[in-house]
């Protein structure tokens, strides 16, 4: 029989999923993170974090830890294909309490977010856990899948959240696929 798991909300372990897991941790909501990969990312990807995200990190209680590994107040020029500046984000402070734009290293950042979830007993992150099927009834959603070791699991929750690029299985029923 498949391993039975239960939570209020289930999602994946990218930067958005882990940020959400930390916020839900703060709000006391039982959260299960199901991630197909073995670890958080190991190669740098995104580099820019804006002021709204910086403020969200403050809500998570992680801004002191994360900002120590960021370059805060960087200037960014967004260029079009012809090399012309289409947007210029100024360096320095903002009136919102966090730098207007910061540069971050995604592997470090994701690791910090993952460690942040350890503060909460009601937030659990399971890696090597591939969701293969999602379904929903009026009362709950279910994610079925298998771990890298071949153990099957069945996780039930009020909500399933697709936090990734469009590849998450969670997006498919919503898109009618």
């Amino acid at each position: 029989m498949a391993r039975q798991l239960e939570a209020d909300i289930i999602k994946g372990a990218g930067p958005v999923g882990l940020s959400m897991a930390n916020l839900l941790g703060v709000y006391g909501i039982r959260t299960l993170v199901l991630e197909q990969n073995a670890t958080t990312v190991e190669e740098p990807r995104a580099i820019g974090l804006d002021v709204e995200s910086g403020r969200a990190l403050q809500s998570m209680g992680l801004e002191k830890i994360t900002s120590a590994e960021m370059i805060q107040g960087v200037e960014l020029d967004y260029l079009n294909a012809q090399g012309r500046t289409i947007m210029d984000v100024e360096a320095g402070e903002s009136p919102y309490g966090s730098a207007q734009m910061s540069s971050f290293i995604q592997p470090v950042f994701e690791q910090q977010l993952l460690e942040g979830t350890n503060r909460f007993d009601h937030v659990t992150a399971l890696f090597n856990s591939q969701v293969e099927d999602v379904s929903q009834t009026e009362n709950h959603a279910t994610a079925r899948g298998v771990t890298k070791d071949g153990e099957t699991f069945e996780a039930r929750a009020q909500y399933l959240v697709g936090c990734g690029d469009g590849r998450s299985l969670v997006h498919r029923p919503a898109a009618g696929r």
Partner: protein
Amino acid sequence: MIVQPKVENANGGQAYMDDFLPEEFVLLGIGADPGAGLSSEAKTLWAELRAKFVSIAPKNGPSGTALKDVTGALTEWRRTCPPFVRLRPDRFTAAMFNTEDAVASLKNFMALYKS
């Protein structure tokens, strides 16, 4: 998104405003007491949303108030808008209103919130 200056609490401790706000919907009064002028109907509606009331006094306001706008940034921000601000947990403004608009504004907001 509402500005976030440093504010001071009654013990003289300073920190960025969000650090003093509950991690929920907040009814913020800038230089105004959010509970004082509201009708009982408005208060019942707020209670339904589990909103927390927070007042931030101007820099030169009475001593001993819970929170003070020591930099003046909130007082400056509020010059262009009504005194009451309903803040979402992510600190974006959900609604702004005067005492006399409180019930109508809340009913509008609740209708959106529940849909």
